[in-house]
């Protein structure tokens, strides 16, 4: 299945959520691939400790018919996990970014690539880390997904855009859609927040993630769920993963 992790605004914690959901799925023994479809501003590879200088093959190479999709998939399974994690990074070379933005890419090819990847790697889940907003590539990613998680923060800035995103996703008939409220100040009553958000969007809230200073400290230094398996936040990532793959 294909899962998109999305948010209307940037900086809501998409990449972190994507990486952590992938990690908790792999911890349960599943095969997961993460595709950085945020070709305009790639970044998730950092969380998996991947240095792009040291690797060969990106999503861009596949879209330009330079490589097979499988050749762009890098095994980044963290040590000790029973499952597998592959990463298909987007190129961070400015030239590549400019080219992909200018030329666009073949939607059919991307879809075929995902199908191929799912088959070739016997994936349980293919997770797409999308570009924020509702640009064409993002709409495409959402449209191709079986499940969509939309992240928002309990902040007025996020509310309206999220409403638009939810409405558009509904038009695209995404089979499963959940909301994830991220970076919730600790003094908020999380159940209260969940209730209000669910009522406002008429959409299931998979989890209300509290603000965590440990998470802030870790920043992009690694995957939180792996470093803190017993943390409440890790439990909530599992909850999101369950909601998405169910």
């Amino acid at each position, binding site marked *: 299945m294909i899962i998109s992790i999305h948010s209307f605004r940037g900086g809501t914690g998409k990449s972190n959520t994507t990486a952590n959901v992938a990690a908790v799925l792999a911890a349960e023994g599943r095969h997961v691939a993460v595709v950085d479809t945020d070709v305009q501003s790639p970044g998730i590879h950092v969380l998996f400790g991947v240095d792009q200088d040291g690797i060969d093959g990106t999503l861009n190479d596949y879209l330009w018919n330079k490589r097979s999709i499988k050749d762009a998939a890098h095994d980044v399974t963290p040590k000790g996990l029973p499952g597998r994690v592959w990463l298909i990074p987007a190129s961070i070379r400015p030239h590549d970014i400019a080219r992909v933005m200018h030329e666009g890419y073949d*939607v*059919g090819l991307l*879809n075929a690539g995902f*199908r191929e990847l799912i088959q070739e790697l016997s994936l349980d889940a293919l997770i797409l880390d999308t570009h924020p907003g*509702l640009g*064409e590539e993002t*709409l*495409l990613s959402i*449209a*191709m997904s*079986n499940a969509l998680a939309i992240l928002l923060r*309990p902040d*007025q800035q996020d*509310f*309206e855009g999220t*409403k*638009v995103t939810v*409405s*558009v996703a509904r*038009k*695209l008939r995404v089979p499963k859609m959940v909301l994830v409220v991220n970076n919730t*100040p600790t*003094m*908020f*009553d999380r159940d*209260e*927040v969940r209730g*209000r*958000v669910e009522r*406002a969007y008429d959409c299931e809230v998979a989890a209300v993630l509290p603000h965590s200073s440990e998470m802030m400290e870790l920043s992009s230094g690694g995957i939180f769920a792996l470093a803190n398996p017993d943390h409440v936040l890790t439990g909530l990532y599992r909850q999101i993963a369950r909601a998405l793959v169910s």
Partner: protein
Amino acid sequence: MEAPRQLRTVRTLATVRWIAIVWAAIQISTYYLPYPPGVFPWAVVAVGVLLVGNTGIWLALRRAEGAAASRRLALASVLVDGIAIVLLVFVYTFDPDTAIWAVLYIVPLGSAVLFLLRGALWTMAVITVLYAVREVYGYLAFDNELLPVSISFRMGVGFIIAAFAGAMASGLESRLRELRGLNRITQTVADERELHRALGAVTSELLSVFDVRSAAIGLIPPGSEAVSVMAESSVDAPDVPELPGLRFTVEGSPALQELVRDAAPVFLTGADDPRAGQEMAAVMRPGEGRGLLIVPLQVRSETIGAILLQAADPGREFKPNEVSLAETVAGQIAGAIQNARLFDEMVEYVEQVSRVTAAASAVESGTFTADSLDQVGRRSDALGQLARVFQAMAKEVAAREQRLRREVQQLRIEIDETRAARQVEEITESDYFQRLQQKIDELRIETGR
């Protein structure tokens, strides 16, 4: 103080005397000439005097206690030595003059060691009288020539020896006494952690070290212009006024002004000394003429207080060595006071640091009250600044949290539905979206979804 020292000396001399007895016995029994008739028994008597006398002293030493007993034993010691030396030297040399010289050389020395300068001079006075009586008796009974110069010359030599030895012994003794006093003060200051008790103990030591009527220690608290008496000890006399708690303003006493200005000891001849000032004169009892020595307590060239020593006897002045000893003691006390202050400051500092730490965890647990740092915040140092900044930050955080909490209570998700609908429409009616939707539908059909 005097008795234990005297007894120690008597014991030392008695030990030496045991050796002397053995030595004398060997001497008289191995004499190289035959003794004239009747002389040997005198020699035996001389050794006997030493033996019996020393045994008596040795036995008496065991239960000797107090000043009177020790004086008696010291006197016995001088007497035994005097008699034995006269007899022994006489029987050995058959020359009364040599015997007399021997006495003049040795007895004043022993006496000086036992009775110090005054005792040595008294001993010489007694010897002089005895010698004069002997001379007069010789003149009257045997028609010997009476030569006053012979008396004055021989006794003069004896007095010189007595004076030198006595002065030496007295000097050493007083130095020793000072050192002992100083040592006790040092120990008191080091042992006693509570400053007030330490000062009290020191004033009581000062009484005996300086042989004064009263000794007091006054401090000038930081920022104050007056000496506050913190501790005082005095000899048991009903007329000695209670000093602790009294304050002498520096401004009101020229002597204290001088003390602070010059950082040097000041001596007042009595209550009538015009430099005393009214407050000080009031407690010094006018008309008595008892001097008062005031020695500054100095810390890093700042006068933080003073030692006040009031003489026991009217007209007594403090000798330079006493003043210098008082200055040494003042240095010790000043150091102890400074240490105590630093210690108190450190304890206070640590306590205030822990208040800031406690405030930090209170902020975390949401129980912080800003006024808990008021006291630390009043400090003028870095810790104070830290506390103030922390307080301001914590207040701001608290205010923000309260604001947020208010907002949470009324977390409203306000969405302009019309605008959102328009935006959705814009997207979904775009050509791209239409194409995408179509494409996706095709793909879904393709993949059988």
